[in-house]
């Protein structure tokens, strides 16, 4: 807070030359802060790893080595692709379901009353406990993992779809009525564009959660995928492999998030928040 107000004052008068070096140092610190915290994290990790045997806490060096080995033998890209091929269709399915229910709920009080209890309940269901049911019903192929993903991503997206479609202000609705717009035109030219910032917010949360869903499915039953890889590392006390798996999942989740953000930028969604 102090640094911030200080900076504004210096910028405004532009004369406080004695504070310039301080300001410059502050800016440099801000720019390199993520790199700094990452280095600090790796440093502490390395220091801690010297105090424990490698099967409990392997050092960053041995994890990096395992990572390169697994890339070289092709197994890490393979398992990562398997996990992605469950998470992304799951995200798509969950999003489609969110639209299929969110649109009627946002438009009709009756649909709201009929469906909302199920939607709230869907969030209350401990999916890790329901997943075995899905395995019984749908087998332990990729379909079940896709369904687990869809279940996990559904809630944050549907909530945002409903809030977004209801977000157009009354004056704009009056305007569309005064202009004799059909319900389809009102939806396409008013409600949907107004909802986009909300929908993308839901997709960003859902996108990251889709990785969690896929891993949870793979943990329960799988012979491939990053969840399987982590399980495998666990059973052989191959702790570096477990950490490689976890970090890859984090990397994938960040990539999905980044891709959604890019799509949002490409569509210029920022403009759309009134």
């Amino acid at each position, binding site marked *: 807070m102090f640094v911030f107000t200080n900076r504004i004052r210096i910028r405004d008068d532009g004369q406080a030359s004695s504070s310039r070096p301080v300001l410059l140092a502050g800016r440099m610190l801000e720019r390199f802060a993520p790199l700094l915290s990452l280095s600090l994290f790796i440093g502490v990790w390395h220091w801690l790893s010297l105090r424990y045997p490698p099967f409990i806490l392997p050092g960053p060096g041995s994890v990096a080595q395992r990572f390169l080995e697994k890339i070289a033998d092709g197994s890490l890209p393979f398992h990562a692709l398997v996990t992605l091929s469950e998470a992304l269709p799951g995200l798509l399915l969950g999003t489609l379901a969110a639209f299929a229910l969110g649109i009627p709920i946002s438009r009709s009080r009756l649909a709201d009353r009929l469906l909302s209890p199920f939607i709230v309940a869907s969030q209350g269901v401990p999916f890790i406990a329901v997943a075995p049911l899905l395995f019984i019903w749908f087998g332990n192929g990729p379909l079940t993992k896709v369904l687990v993903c869809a279940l996990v991503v559904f809630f944050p997206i549907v909530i945002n779809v409903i809030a977004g479609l209801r977000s157009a202000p009354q004056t704009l609705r009056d305007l*569309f009525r005064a*202009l004799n717009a*059909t319900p389809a035109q009102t939806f396409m030219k008013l409600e949907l564009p107004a909802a986009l910032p909300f929908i993308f917010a839901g997709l960003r949360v859902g996108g990251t959660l889709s990785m969690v869903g896929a891993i949870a499915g793979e943990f329960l039953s799988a012979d491939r995928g990053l969840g399987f890889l982590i399980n495998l590392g666990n059973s052989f006390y191959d702790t570096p492999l477990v950490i490689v798996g976890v970090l890859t999942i984090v990397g994938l989740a960040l990539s999905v998030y980044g891709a959604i953000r890019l799509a949002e930028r490409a569509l210029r969604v920022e403009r759309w928040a009134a």
Partner: protein
Amino acid sequence: MLIAEHISHTYPNGVEALRQFSLQLSAGQFMAIVGPSGCGKSTLLRVLAGLLRPTSGKVWLAGEPVTQPSPRIGMMFQDAALLPWRTVAQNIRLPLELGWRGNAHFSVEELIQLVGLRGFEHAYPRELSGGMAQRVSLARALITRPPVLLLDEPFGALDAMTRENLTAALEGILRATQTTAVMVTHSIAEAVFLADQVVVSSPRPGRPLGIVRVTLPRPRHWGMESWPEFGHLVGQVRALLAQPLVEPARVN
């Protein structure tokens, strides 16, 4: 041209907004409706626009009843109501994209010129001042060349300078396009400046207390505000607003 006959409206929550409101307007005329806050002015405008079906009474436009919104009636709101994801030109074009069938419309370029927004065709609403946004809103309301324009306190949220500029611009534009207009406003000076007749409404439930006919010559300019006649007209409107209310006798 535009006739409202004995309009009464009571909302479902029991609030009586209008009681027996009648008005009559010939083509090309400007009518201003002034009255205290909450007197049902906006309700009346929504009824005239066909957005709200009154509890009783009828609206006629050129001999045909108005029961639903029509492209023959343009509307301008207190809030400019622009779509934030559309440019100025795209916002103005909106009515043409929504079910408007006809070809006697203005071109977007003509309107941008008319409302004085040349150079801002591709700007987004967030890049405009409040006054500019209302100019866009006016252009959008006029694009279908509606014979009637309804204005719901269109300058209510603007500063005094911008209001004066915009009212003067509006007077010129409506004269140039020969549009019949009904405007609801809180400002007596604005009403006198723009209108051919000023209707004074009672507090809720709104009903007409009287009509002041404005005989100032057109085109009008704000210099007229210092004319004795202008002051006299403002005084007449004030007197109507200030008169004690007598409830109509109830027969049990």
